């Protein structure tokens, strides 16, 4: 695997974790209702 691919994969995974956590909070908030 090329160096650039490893770096891109690291960025995608790291930002993916943050986005995933935000989505998880959104779903929990929606389930709790108003």
């Amino acid at each position, binding site marked *: 695997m090329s*160096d*650039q691919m490893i770096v891109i994969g*690291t960025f995608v*995974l*790291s930002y993916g974790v*943050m986005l995933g956590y*935000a989505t998880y909070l959104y779903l*929990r*908030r929606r389930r709790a*209702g108003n």
Partner: protein
Amino acid sequence: MTRVKVLLAVAALAMAIGLWFALTAPTDALQGDFTRIINIHAPSMWLAFLAFGVTALGSAMWLIRKHNRWDRLAEASAELGVMFTAIGLFTGMVWGKAVWGRAWDWGDARLATSAVMFFVYVGYLALRAATPDPIERARRSAILGVIAVIQVPLVYFSVNLFRTLHQTQSIRPDGATMPQEMAIAILVNVIAYTILYVALLVARIDVAKAEERVANEDALAGDTVKPPRLSEVKDV
């Protein structure tokens, strides 16, 4: 739009700007594109320190005031701290493998103390999950939250106390050990990550409040719908 949505939108914009800086900043002659990983690694670890500091503050305030809002703050911040530490450890390992030639070394003070800090705060979240009574949960986790924060200065200064594999601080009050453009990219990302942290913290506290409301409503409904006593049941 609610306050949480506005904050998350601002955070998304800040993160996009941070990403642009990370991908366009000059790279190190030897490290190549792996230099860019530091734009995730350093801000993540900084935010983990801030998050665990806020957890300690919330914990101490709960022990003094015994108000729910401090427990919610401590819990939300600890969760975010664990997430940022996980990202910091992961990105550090990828960078270490490329630049040091090895992803992990238990003999290194910074790596070992960071790993211990990560597991202690995972333990903090496990302790919360394992304690059903809300008051007891807040009390136990507040005590741990106050004690566990000792690790933050230990991790930060481990590179000065024990000279092992990890380099010392690259951005210091007296200047940076790198070209200005690279330092600016890291600082822009630190600001972006801080905005993201605040947005997710407010969102997480909002979730906790909503879930507490639902739990209280369920408890009230449970009080009003009682099963009939045997003495009240008349024979037909």
